């Protein structure tokens, strides 16, 4: 077990080092930040002075080493555009993204699992077929289109929900929350659905197919033979066994929900880290872009690591016969 944990952590560190170096390479290939920062009228000498001050005239290897060393201690430097520490800017925006991600995951689980269960149990009913159509739409429509359609319907035509922004937020220490005001909650609905729609349809399809498979297994047949009610069979046995992959997928999807909120946040002008990233791209604010990449890489690595370890812990077979099953599961 310990050897397994250590090897996973080592692998993760290598991944993080590579991600950090890729993030650093941004500094060299995405346009000249000095030009983006200065006005059209700034003189050539002023530009050169700024370039030196930003450390952009040093050797590449020196810059790379400096970047990795600082990133390891959480220091990503100063934003070119806002002139504030990048770490502080990310911390300020993180609550917005995490709350949005939470709402979208709750939406995906709360709607996706019941839909999946229903369409597995009543496979031929018209509602199950309708769910299949919905899931096809959710899988195939890109989020920016879904977002704009929702805005058009609920904000412009019906006028029920705000079209953009976070509404009023309440500060709780360094955390800002939209859960405590009416306008904050209303503002969460449309982006939450937009961001969660894909995960919802994914979960629905997963639960449906896992459930169908589970219903064919021997233990379900045996449970029926024991005379258990449908409810106990479906929810106590079949669903419980389908939940293991669901948990894994949800965990991994949580990472992509946080990381890929970029589009949803841009469409809804959501003041989270994804939108911050887009703004950084537009103004070639490389420290922010690099920090975002490293952070997203970190979130993925941590979630993968935790999922691996949880799997190890949840699945007794893995502990008992690691040699046999590890190849398949890790």
């Amino acid at each position, binding site marked *: 077990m310990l050897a397994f944990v250590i090897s996973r952590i080592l692998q993760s560190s290598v991944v993080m080092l590579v991600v950090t170096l890729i993030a650093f390479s941004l500094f060299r290939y995405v346009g000249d930040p000095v030009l983006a920062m200065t006005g059209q009228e*700034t003189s050539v000498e002023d530009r050169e002075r700024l370039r030196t001050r930003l450390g952009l005239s040093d050797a590449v290897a020196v810059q790379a080493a400096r970047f990795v060393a600082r990133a390891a201690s959480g220091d990503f430097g100063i934003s070119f555009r806002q002139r504030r520490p990048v770490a502080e800017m990310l911390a300020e925006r993180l609550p917005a993204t995490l709350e949005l991600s939470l709402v979208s995951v709750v939406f995906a689980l709360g709607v996706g699992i019941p839909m999946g269960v229903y369409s597995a149990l009543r496979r031929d009913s018209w509602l199950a077929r309708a769910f299949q159509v919905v899931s096809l739409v959710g899988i195939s429509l890109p989020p920016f289109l879904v977002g*704009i359609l929702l805005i058009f319907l609920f*904000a412009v035509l019906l*006028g029920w929900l705000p079209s953009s922004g976070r509404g009023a937020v309440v500060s709780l220490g360094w955390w800002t929350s939209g859960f405590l005001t009416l306008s904050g909650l209303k503002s969460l609905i449309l982006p939450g659905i937009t961001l969660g729609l894909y995960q919802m349809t994914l979960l629905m399809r997963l639960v449906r197919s896992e459930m169908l498979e589970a219903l064919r297994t021997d233990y379900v047949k045996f449970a029926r033979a024991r005379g258990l009610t449908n409810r106990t069979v479906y929810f106590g046995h079949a669903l419980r066994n389908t939940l293991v992959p669901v948990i894994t997928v949800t965990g991994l999807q949580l990472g992509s929900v946080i990381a890929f909120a970029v589009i949803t946040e841009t*469409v809804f002008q959501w003041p989270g880290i994804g939108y911050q990233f887009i703004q950084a791209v537009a103004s070639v604010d490389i420290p922010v872009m690099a920090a975002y990449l490293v952070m997203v890489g970190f979130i993925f690595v941590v979630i993968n690591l935790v999922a691996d370890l949880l799997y190890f812990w949840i699945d007794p077979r893995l502990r008992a016969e690691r040699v046999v099953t590890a190849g398949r599961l890790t």
Partner: protein
Amino acid sequence: MVNTDISGKGNVMTRRPVGRWMRVAMFAFVGALLLLPGAAGGADGKVFRWSFQSDVLTLDPYHNNETMTLGFLNNIYEGLVRRGKKMEIEPALATEWSTRGADVWRFKLRPGVKFHDGSPLTPEDVIFSYERARSETSDIKPFVDGIKAVRKVDDHTIEIVTDGPRPILLNSIARWYIVPKAWFEKHNTVKVHKLGTAETNYATLHANGTGPFMIKTRQPDVQTVLVPNPGWWDRTEHNVSEAIFRPIKADATRVAGLLSGELDMMYPVPLQDVARINNSGNVQVLQNPEVRTIFLGFDLHRDELLYSSVKGKNPFKDRRVRQAMYQAIDIKAIREKVMFGASRPTALLIGPGITGFDPALDQRLPHDVAASKRLLADAGYPNGFDVTFDCPNDRYVNDESICQAVTAMLARAGLKVRLNAQTKAKHFQKITAKDTSFYLLGWTPASLDMHETFSYIAATGSQWNCGGYSNPKVDGLLKEIATEVDPRKRQTLITEAMRLHKEDIGYLPLHQQALAWGVKRNVDVVQLGDNTFSLRWVRMQ
């Protein structure tokens, strides 16, 4: 526990109290929600909400020479003079001025003006503002360029000493805002903190001006709330009790915000949405020509182009080639199909609204593909040639579409143009490094004067003269224009310089783009030609 208890009465019994607690908690939660105030905003009075595609970069008026930022800050800070509804210069913190000799300007400061923190405006503030504006890290140095000194005469009078005659001094200083010395010293922010430095800077997030509005709260990139300054020196024309600014980057979302009534005003309106917004009933689009001119530039300097099939010579050095390209462009088609009618074709590098504009000169060469082919054949390129065309895709209105149209039009005359459209950061990096053969650029002079445009893009060796255009006669005229005080003589010189450039086809002018603001029909705003927006004229019904 055995799990065969079928409907499990015990189960239900244990579940009920939990359910009750849940319900109580839910009611409490919903109740709390209803008690909390909804969206921010004054209960009485008029809250004005507006949006632009990007945020104000900083609250420090010396930090960034960007049109939108300086326009926004004019609500908070003011200069000695300001621009009126028609962009005319009018008195602001100075009530009157006179020249004493060729290079001394005497300004009378307006009595009784107070900054938002209550401190009075003094000549020391003006002197401090001058020193700060011309300091090494200031980004607005060009505005006070040519001012040698600012000195105090008495408690209500200052003198500005210029480096020789400065006919456009008042135009240059309209966006140089006066800041309070004591406040900047108290908050240790005298030095303009230049891009990329680690020090924190109070003035980028706080403001203390003399203007009609004060900052109430500011969250960069999220929202900025302004309230009227009750002690403003001028008669209040607006009737706004609170103004909320939110940047919204996505075009569709900004349009939706306006259509759903969450915004009272937003800009820019994407041109393809203009008709839809005008038809929506309670919102309309205000369109007027902007003072920005869009034009094409050529590499006129190298002996062989960097990006062309022609080797050993530079076809653009031949005026006939440039004229062939000029006449191949159907500017009416660009106006109708690409700009949805929202552009003003031009033959000059400046448009109406810029000092020096001469309508008599503003006549384009006719669109004539046959003539283009003939000119190319005469110049020795009967089969045309290949060239790469550098274009931004996120800077000007429909810039990439304009470039695509130009590419297709030049193809009709026989030129094979490879379009290289990219983001503005990459584009400007490439063209200012003179790493280009053929490119698109737009220019607005902040002083609204022809001399500024020409000295940046047409004077020999100037910074944004990316193709190396050079005409010694134009250079000589520009020197005279800079110091000529008599407006009529100055206009003659300007007209001559523009005529020479037009003859040369140093640049190929396209059009002045139009401003497009979406505004609720029951709100009155004043649209300025440099696309800046002032709260002081907003009237809400």
